[in-house]
């Protein structure tokens, strides 16, 4: 027993955690420390790729006696360099989490009651296949919904949905960044990277980059600001960490960022400060833009944004003067308002007219690297139209991602047809969609729900069967190309064998496919898949290299300006950068961004705004014991003026009520937020008792957020909810 305690202490010390903080939750893992660990245990260093967020940083796992002892950064990856963030380090606890799913389970109580029967994989596969087949037989394959989030093994899940015959794959982008993706695609034909390392002037609208995701390009920007290389102007109703580090912070009136950007464009064009050569050579529609923005003066924008006109004018001049090395940063989560697409379009246009395209310190089209592809047997296309009617309602949106909130509305209404089975991979719609009561209604009307996940998410908690996926450190995944300014190819390989009765997603999909009569479409191994991908990497001994290094990156400096040639064709309708978009006009949308003032909350209510911190990825990881140490509960930010008026004290519980729900959480009375807003963090108030650290702790924003979406991209509009706040 003494030996065991010593090993645990060594383990925890080496992993940078405090033993006291972690001990309480380690009990369930003790057995994994009992065997095979001695001072003579073999130590291996195995390169792999982190999965705790979408950044795909390269890591090196230090494995001792069959256990992951530590995760180190892998400096060979130019995107992640010598850095692994708090989440990356805490991936160890995903493996050794006593709460994680350890075997397949079938629900035996009511949905959400938490009564489960552990079953064999065969039983789980047979059960799910029968349910899916029943729905298919009764309603057709289109009555099944396949929801997933970005991941290296997501492809297998999507392929099963398609091979099953369902058109209804729905992915995460319309809950995250679909408006940015569509706006930049509509303007430049692609979504570029932002060269923060070399930029001289950066503007961020609500993109809380210093706090919400900490990666090397965050550090580039911090370095730039700290060394006075780059100037940072930051707009946010909250005084965030990014605001604290910025040169200038403006607590902009929520929902008015578009007015600020249009006024900047107005100043730059009126004062003839745009990049005339670039505009003439590479863009179309500038003259229409010049006419269009005449109405958007800084004085007009001051009334909308509450940012002084003189500051808007000065910032516009400084931005234009920085020219090719000025950036209006797009941000990563762009699900804010119903005009989000047009706001992002205006950012793209502003970037375009100062000529920062494909320039050092500007926006850079992503360089790519070649890799091979495993060619699997193709299936017949699903015959039914999508249930979310994307092509009719959102003709320019990415149809293969779907539009989540419209989809939920249509599923609830049963039109254009019923959907009765819901398969979910690596996603928690209970927390990622607004208005949880609607999601619960959608769950209620399903004949079958199956969830594949590493942990018992709230969605899994309401499922009929859960398939436990192996953690990323326990499995090998497809190879991934990471396009960018410094492109790389990354490889995720198994570091330790699964410690529970779990499987990688491919094997789960194969188990289901076999029983659904679709086995031929998945008749390959992960090794065959990966070998095919290694084949076309332009390096000698590619497989050996990737297994040894985990990453391959092109050498040398980034190459700028490759697209700045007379014969370059942008992937747009005209082949040019489209300031004025005919395609938008033809689809019935504004071809240039038009400002509409947002509706403001009545006097007794506040606008609810959301945000992220770097410890958690969306609603994930708040139950990770190491990350939980950083933040144990969320609270409600409220300005002292309304708090005093309502008698709300710092730290006291308040109820927050919208038209769709009510939650209770602690108040944080702070000057760091405007008086017309309140703020809460995502990822708490879980319903799953197997998220024991955050079960019923804090509150889930999904309960009170109302359903609204951007008109063009279908992106959820998460900042359109007004709430009442009162002492609990």
């Amino acid at each position, binding site marked *: 027993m003494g030996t065991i305690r010593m090993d645990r202490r060594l383990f925890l010390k080496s992993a940078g955690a405090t033993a006291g903080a972690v001990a309480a939750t380690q009990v369930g893992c003790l057995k994994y420390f009992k065997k095979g660990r001695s001072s003579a245990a073999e130590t291996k260093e195995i390169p792999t790729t982190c999965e705790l967020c979408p950044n795909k940083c390269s890591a090196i796992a230090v494995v001792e006696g069959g256990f992951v002892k530590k995760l180190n950064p892998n400096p060979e990856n130019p995107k992640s360099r010598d850095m692994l963030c708090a989440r990356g380090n805490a991936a160890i606890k995903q493996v050794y989490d006593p709460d994680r799913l350890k075997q397949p389970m079938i629900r035996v109580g009511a949905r959400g009651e938490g009564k489960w029967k552990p079953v064999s994989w065969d039983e789980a596969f047979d059960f799910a296949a029968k349910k899916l087949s029943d729905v298919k037989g009764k309603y057709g394959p289109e009555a099944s919904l396949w929801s997933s989030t970005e991941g290296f093994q997501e492809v297998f899940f999507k392929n099963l949905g398609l091979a099953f015959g369902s058109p209804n794959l729905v992915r995460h982008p319309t809950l995250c960044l679909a408006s940015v*993706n569509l706006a930049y695609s509509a303007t430049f034909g692609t979504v570029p990277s932002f060269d923060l390392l070399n930029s001289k002037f950066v503007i961020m609208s609500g993109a809380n980059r210093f706090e919400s995701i900490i990666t090397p390009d965050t550090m580039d920007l911090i370095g730039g600001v700290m060394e006075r290389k780059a100037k940072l102007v930051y707009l946010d109703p909250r005084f965030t960490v990014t605001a604290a580090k910025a040169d200038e912070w403006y607590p902009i009136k929520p929902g008015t960022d578009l007015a600020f950007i249009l006024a900047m464009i107005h100043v730059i064009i009126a004062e003839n400060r745009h990049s005339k050569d670039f505009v003439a050579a590479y863009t179309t529609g500038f003259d229409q833009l010049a006419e269009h923005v005449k109405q958007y003066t800084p004085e007009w924008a001051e009334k909308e944004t509450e940012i002084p006109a003189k500051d808007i004018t000065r910032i516009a001049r400084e931005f234009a003067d920085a020219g090719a090395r000025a950036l209006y940063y797009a941000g990563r989560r762009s699900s804010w308002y119903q005009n989000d697409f047009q706001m992002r379009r205006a950012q793209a246009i502003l970037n375009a007219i100062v000529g920062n395209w494909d320039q050092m310190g500007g926006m850079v089209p992503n360089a790519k690297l070649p890799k091979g592809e495993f060619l699997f047997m193709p299936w017949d296309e699903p015959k039914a139209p999508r249930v979310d009617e994307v092509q009719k309602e959102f003709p*320019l949106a*990415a149809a293969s991602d779907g539009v989540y909130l419209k989809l939920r509305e249509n599923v609830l209404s049963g039109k254009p047809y019923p959907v009765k089975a819901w398969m979910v991979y690596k996603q928690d719609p209970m927390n990622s969609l607004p208005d949880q009561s609607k999601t619960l209604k959608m769950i209620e009307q399903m004949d079958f729900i199956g969830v594949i996940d590493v942990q018992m998410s709230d969605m899994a908690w309401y499922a009929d069967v859960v398939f436990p996926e192996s953690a990323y450190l326990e499995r090998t995944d497809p190879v991934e190309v990471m396009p960018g300014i410094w492109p790389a190819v990354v490889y995720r390989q198994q570091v330790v064998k699964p410690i529970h009765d779990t499987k990688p997603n491919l094997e789960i999909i194969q188990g289901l496919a076999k029983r659904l009569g679709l086995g031929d479409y998945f008749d390959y191994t992960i090794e065959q898949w990966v070998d095919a991908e290694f084949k076309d990497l332009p390096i000698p001994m590619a497989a050996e290299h990737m297994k040894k290094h985990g990453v391959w990156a092109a050498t040398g400096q980034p190459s700028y300006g490759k697209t700045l040639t007379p014969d370059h064709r942008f992937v747009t309708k005209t082949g040019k950068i489209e300031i004025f978009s005919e395609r938008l006009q033809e689809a019935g*949308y504004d071809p240039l961004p038009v400002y509409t003032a947002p509706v403001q909350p009545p006097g007794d209510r506040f606008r609810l705004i959301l945000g992220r911190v770097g410890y958690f990825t969306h609603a994930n990881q708040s139950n990770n014991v190491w990350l939980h140490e950083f933040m144990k509960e969320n609270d409600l930010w409220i300005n002292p003026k309304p708090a005093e008026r309502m008698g709300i004290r710092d730290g006291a519980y308040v109820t927050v009520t919208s038209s769709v729900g009510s939650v209770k959480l602690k108040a944080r009375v702070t000057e760091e937020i405007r008086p017309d807003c309140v703020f809460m963090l995502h990822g708490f108030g879980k319903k799953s008792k197997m998220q024991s650290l955050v079960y019923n702790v804090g509150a889930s924003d999904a309960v009170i957020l109302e359903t609204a979406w951007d008109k063009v991209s279908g992106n959820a509009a998460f900042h359109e909810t007004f709430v009442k706040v009162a002492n609990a």
Partner: protein
Amino acid sequence: MRNSLKLFAVIATLSASLAAQGGSDTKGKFFFKKTCKACHTPGSAAKEITPLSKTQAQWKAYFAAGKHKKGSEKIDSVIKPEQVKDVQTFLVNHASDSPQPETCGG
């Protein structure tokens, strides 16, 4: 109302173009990679070809002409006749002026 009409026109155009192609994007990608990319890759004798090599109109014109190797042979002597529509659909859908917004992963 005007916007609705325009939207209807776009949908009608899209539907008509898809109906005219009548093929499978998924199968087209498979046949393109399996057959066309066997030769049309960087460093090989044939010029590299990707869907971005032509506009939608150019791809449609190419398949309407039905010729391969600068007109010296028919396209359906290289790709099986029943696969031509699928390959055309894939190439047109992903052409250099196609409205294909980028996504996250996937």
